[in-house]
């Protein structure tokens, strides 16, 4: 079976749904969202906690309420949401391959938007040592146990990681009768504002930073986590579950299968300032680009990219018009910077940057000749979303690669 539409959106999370609504608002006729799960809404579907929705709906909502609201808004706008539709690849020319409950199908779109989100690194991806018992999972799995299935996967877990999402894990546990044994961070300091982790202390959950994971214990179910603490002593934390939180990585499976150029730092697709990937028909938005930002940021990004797509479609006259290609000069992040998105810029834009660890110093954008274009003083905690506003640049600046450097204070 084959079908056509104006814009096909891969992924019905905050980024995909907001893009869909904006496309409709700007008059695009046929907008189809393809969502692999039985319900659209993305990750917030199973985040039964606030805060979601401030930017979008000017009120604080829980994740599921927010997800429902996104879906309802999209449906009202006339977006066609197809659930249980998994996109396996996007072939050139905007041809999507789908796996559905009716078997394989294709859908041809004038433009495609990939908004497949991200996920937390698994125990395997972190190469965490030890045995492989039942009860090791990511925060998202914990949250779907609790908020989607109404079950507790364990009673006394250890939470590994100290990014914002570790707090989600912590609060979900506390609110549902699970008592975390400890919060364990392998790096020297917590990976968010120190203040947030004071909350753990308030809840009397010890925070162990600088710990080395020695082994996951338990032959069938989790029985403990053995670690070396930052003072060199070895301990065994008795527990019946382990949550590996954070260390997000893009859900770039479709992007990879579609042959899009990927960024070695973000591990997501490379885009220009308009959100266009290395395939001219394919745009990208949301956390698949930058692990990890809030739902609100992804939502706004979806809307912005939708504007670019809508304008481009409106400008198309004949059937044969070809899409533009990726535009602008490449921005190369230097030492100490994990990624910068977008990877290409032309006009005035805002860069979304992540440093390795905490960063204090000067953030400097230079052109190929070494000329300083933008400078910003930086004091960032680890995993802090860093923004850099870049004004319209002159032709000389855009004639070669741009370099974004972090000059650390010592």
């Amino acid at each position, binding site marked *: 079976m084959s079908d056509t539409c104006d814009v096909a959106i891969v992924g019905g999370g905050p980024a995909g749904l907001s893009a869909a609504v904006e496309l409709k608002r700007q008059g695009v006729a046929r907008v189809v969202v393809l969502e*692999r*799960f*039985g319900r659209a809404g993305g990750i917030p579907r199973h985040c039964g906690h606030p805060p979601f929705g401030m930017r979008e709906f000017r009120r604080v909502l829980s994740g599921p309420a927010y997800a429902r609201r996104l879906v309802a808004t999209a449906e009202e706008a006339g977006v066609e949401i197809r659930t*249980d539709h*998994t996109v396996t690849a996007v072939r050139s020319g905007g041809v999507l391959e789908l*796996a559905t*409950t*009716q*078997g*394989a199908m294709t859908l041809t779109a004038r433009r495609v938007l990939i908004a497949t989100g991200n*996920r*937390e690194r*698994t*125990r*395997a*991806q972190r*190469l*965490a*040592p*030890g*045995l*492989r018992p*039942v*009860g090791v*999972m*990511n925060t*998202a*799995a914990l949250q*779907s*146990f609790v908020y*989607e*299935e109404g*079950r*507790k*996967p*364990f*009673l006394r877990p250890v939470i590994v990681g100290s990014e914002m999402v570790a707090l989600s894990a912590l609060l979900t546990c506390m609110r549902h009768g699970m008592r975390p044994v400890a919060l364990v961070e392998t790096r020297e300091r917590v990976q968010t504002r120190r203040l947030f982790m004071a909350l753990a202390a308030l809840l009397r959950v010890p925070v162990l930073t600088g710990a080395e994971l020695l*082994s996951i214990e338990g*032959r*069938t*179910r989790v029985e403990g986590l053995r670690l070396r603490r930052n003072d060199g002593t070895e301990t065994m934390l008795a527990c*019946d579950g382990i949550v590996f939180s954070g260390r997000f*990585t893009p*859900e770039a*499976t479709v992007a*990879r*299968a579609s042959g899009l150029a990927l960024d*070695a730092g973000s*591990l997501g697709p490379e885009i220009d300032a308009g959100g266009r990937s290395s395939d001219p028909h394919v745009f990208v938005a949301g956390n698949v680009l930058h692990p990890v930002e809030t739902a609100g940021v992804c939502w706004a990004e979806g809307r912005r990219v939708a504007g670019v797509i809508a304008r481009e479609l409106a400008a198309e006259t004949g059937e044969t018009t070809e899409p533009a290609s990726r535009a602008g000069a490449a921005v190369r992040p230097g030492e100490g910077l994990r990624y910068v998105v977008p990877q290409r810029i032309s006009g005035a834009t805002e860069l979304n940057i992540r440093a390795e660890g905490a960063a204090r110093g000067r953030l400097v954008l230079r052109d190929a000749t070494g000329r300083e274009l933008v400078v910003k003083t930086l004091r960032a905690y680890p995993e802090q979303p860093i923004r850099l506003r870049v004004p319209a640049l002159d032709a000389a600046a855009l004639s070669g690669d741009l370099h974004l450097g972090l000059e650390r204070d010592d």
Partner: protein
Amino acid sequence: MHLVHTSPEADVAIIGAGVVGCAMARRFALEGATVVVLEAATDILSGASKANSAILHTGFDAPTGSLELACMQAAYAEYMDIRAAMNLPVLETGAMVAAWSDEEEARLPTLLAQAQENGVTDTRLLGRAEVLAREPALAAHVRGALLVPREYVIDPWSAPLAYATQAQMLGARFLFNAALKGARRDGATWVLDTAAGEVKATTVVNCAGLYGDHVETMFTGKPSFEIRPRKGQFVVYDKAASEHLRTILLPVPNDRTKGVVLTRTIFGNLLVGPTAEEQEARDRPDVTRPELDMLMDKAVELVPALRDMPVTAVYAGLRPATERKEYRVHADADLGYYCAGGIRSTGLTAALGIASHVFALWGRAHQAVRGAVNAPPQPVMPNLAEHLPRDYQTPGHDGIVCHCEMVTAREIRAALDSPLPPGDFGGLRRRTRCAMGRCQGFNCLARVATLSEGKLRADILPEGDA
């Protein structure tokens, strides 16, 4: 001797439901014996057979004239014979023993000669250009290789499950949570004390893998071999990696260092491993950081495109090695004791052959078996191989539950309702691949837990959760 049946007494009690025990149960059941299988764990394949490289070996490099070689080659032929009826997949990769130095290159002709002597006559040497033409992603410093066209990749779990299911269809009983704790001889009967109660059998076959010596002690008082577990760790790369290698890449064997294998899996991933680490513990297949790093370094050295390739899974298996290299297969017909022990590193391939061999030993002492079953029932295994049609591609599957491995709700239900259903989460994963993909259950774990709730011997949810 005539076999009379005073009800629950079986002709044969098989200790252990690893791949060897499953094949053993099938063979004896096919030949008309009544069979009971005692398994300590909550599912089949819970020991050594849980984790291996999944290569169906030709025996090209096995010791010439050994029982191991004979079993592997008989088993290879039998597998190819039965696989269509049971829907057991084969990925026809072929293998290359690749040489990376002068020293290794110099050894290739010896390997070729041994392969030829072992009857693997389609092996041949490839020059560097031929190797690179076949596998363009290999590092340029490859020197040459021995090509073994019929080394293949299989599904390491559906094959033993098929053997066990067929045995069960023929009347074999599988008891789980049934660790053998002791045994006594009562006339011509073994009275077996198990965690699931008393079981009687005329003959016992020791297929206890990593505990083969302990189990032997229960029957003979003194073990004739000693298990020395040897761990093998693996790293499984994302499916995107598999486009970089089609042929199994084997190392040139060397006395000093064990080389690692790079191979596709039947599920569409690429695997590097195993290590070979001697250890005391029989129940600790730990993964460890330095070894995983070493494996990935090696993988990148051989196939540079694997640098920065995402990892999907890491795991380790324990080989039931002994103080000697060969299989420890022996029989004491008077005692009614048979042993298939020390099936170290080729058991996935050889199990069918080992089973026939042990049955032949047994048959010699038991002239009056009721006779082989005519037209035995054939279980048909669900296909999980990536290169063959999967369930999600067939309409009406009720939605995909695990998106990384594209496992449908229909497949999960079918596994839970199958004749030999999974006993634990691991068993469900092995039967369906759910939660085995790149997100390792980030998306589907909770759903899988509720779908299987109350249907496993060991639930995914902790006891007493409400």
